[in-house]
């Protein structure tokens, strides 16, 4: 058990810590929770509107967010470093189309009417996975290493 004097000391330290932390917090206005303008259909080209100036609170050169095919496949870096930028246009459920600990069907099946979207495992991936898994199992691990692998367990036990 922690005695009352110790609790007081801990309380004072915690209070001081909070005060110090508040002093350290940036005074900049937060990034807009929603995009200021409605965007058209399809992938946006951010640099059509955003200049090379960095934006306060986000400090990101937006030219690097153009939603090219390459960006869509490599978006993990941007999402890891500042997902608030993604959240200004995308609802969290958009990420959930592919990223979920447990999904009832592969994204390519759910998005069968959207061939324009980069959904993994289009076509007969059951045959292909025996090759891809030998050449690069680490690519499987990203999504199926710690979750989403109940179907894998039918054969791989």
């Amino acid at each position, binding site marked *: 058990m922690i005695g009352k004097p110790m609790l007081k000391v801990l309380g004072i330290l915690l209070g001081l810590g909070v005060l110090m932390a508040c002093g*350290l*917090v*940036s*005074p*900049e*206005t*937060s*990034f807009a929770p929603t995009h200021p303008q409605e965007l058209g259909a399809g992938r946006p080209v951010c640099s059509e509107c955003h200049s*090379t100036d960095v934006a306060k*609170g986000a*400090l*990101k*050169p937006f*030219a*690097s967010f153009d939603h*090219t*095919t*390459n960006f869509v496949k*490599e978006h*993990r*870096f*941007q*999402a*890891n470093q500042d997902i*608030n930028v993604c*959240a200004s246009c*995308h*609802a*969290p*459920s958009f990420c*959930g189309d592919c*990223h979920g*600990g*447990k999904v*009832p*069907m592969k994204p390519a099946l*759910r998005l*069968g*009417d*959207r*061939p*324009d979207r980069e959904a993994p495992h*289009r*076509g*007969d991936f059951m*045959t*292909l996975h025996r*090759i891809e898994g*030998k*050449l690069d199992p680490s690519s*499987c*691990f990203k999504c199926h*290493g*710690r*979750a989403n*692998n*109940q*179907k894998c*367990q039918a054969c791989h*036990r």
Partner: protein
Amino acid sequence: MGFKSPEPIGCHAGAGGRLGRNVKWRTKVTLLGALVAATGWSQDISVQGITIAQMWKQETPGFDKATYTPATQYLGIDATKLGSDKLSLHLFGWGRADLGDSSVLDGSKSGGYLTYGYLQYQFDKANAELKVGRFAVNQSTGFEQVDGISARTDLRGGFTLSGFYGLPVLYRTVDPVSQADYRFQRDVIFGSRLAWRSTKGLELGVSYLQDGSKAAKDLPLPSATDYSRKQVGVDVAVTPTTIFDVRGRTVFDVASHPAPAAGAAEPSKLAEHDYTATLKLGGQLAVSGNFVERNFFAYFAGSNLPSLFRQDEHDLFKAWGGKLTWSAASALQVVADYRRTHRETYGDANRAGADLRMDFLEKTVLAGVGAHWVSVVDAKLVDPLAPYRSLSHREARAWVLVNKGKFSASLDGIVQYYDSSNPYIAGLRTVYETVGSLGYQATSNLKVSGDLSYGSNPVARHETQGLLKAEYRFGMGKKGGQ
């Protein structure tokens, strides 16, 4: 050997995760009901739902004939301005019911999952926010699902601090004994990231992740399988100009592991290097290069499927490649790519190809074609009777999507050509699948569509599947991303 827990294992059914193990279903329903009821306070609520009905039949020699008719319901709620402009609630999950034979391998005819459900408070300053509930964390070291609390804020001087603490969402392992071990080890999850960002376009981050406070050696009957993890990550983004950037991360496995067998090499602590550089030349051309290195012992740490993602292979994987993107006009984009992969135990492979995307009549018609070649130049141990080049194959895809008024239609075809000596194709060198879809936007909030697919593959020479889908969205929320 493992530790047998007296508690029942139930994380694979119901809502899943920690909640699925230790909390009675009545409590779960009450908590979820309270969260949903909280949306009544919202001044801005958005509800998105997708209902999918599928049907396919299967006739496999040696097995009973089966007819599968699963119905799947996705439901998401985003409620903002919950009494305050800064407080919001986000829920998303799905449920499944099989009207015919069970479509999942455990034989159950129903199931569901809460992907996320959290309250979020966003502050006016410093991009600060708090989340409580079930949420996903994607800091530098990876993607985690957590039942707990998270916080982030920008600090003075360009620093950013974020952290989370809670219970890890648990998934299923292959048997009850390993499931008990898994649950024993993964009793807590927490992590933090500290980053610094300069106005000149440099961002550096350091992160730590700990998943579980125990390890396999702490079990009453010690096991060889660690489901817990301790990782340190370093991430970097260099964007000195809008035409050039380098992004990537390095992750280390810092958990203590049993000493290797006498004479065996100490496994590397380096789990992953993953770096991409992009150079934009004018407004039309972009070149990117990527380098990846992964040591399987460290990279596969914490897998709940260790028989597949085997740490004991001590394998090393490296890959490098590049992409050339040419945007000839806003309506035309060509991407050419090349990648060479090297795996110590299996050898090397080259992958190359190109994709072309087009849009006509201001995105009324979207279309794409692509082709890729995979040349397995030096793979080993494929099959004692098969040459190692047999894994080489080619793939081609073509698709078109038309949106005209309230109607939409799409056609997507993909075909793979395999080497005749490939041991996995049961003599079928050409494998293909076509998907056709018709949709009707009945109202601004409701769209119905139907997909019909036909294909041929080594498991089913003739495979036909049908899928009906209804998508609806109510409320005032503008975010989406579709």
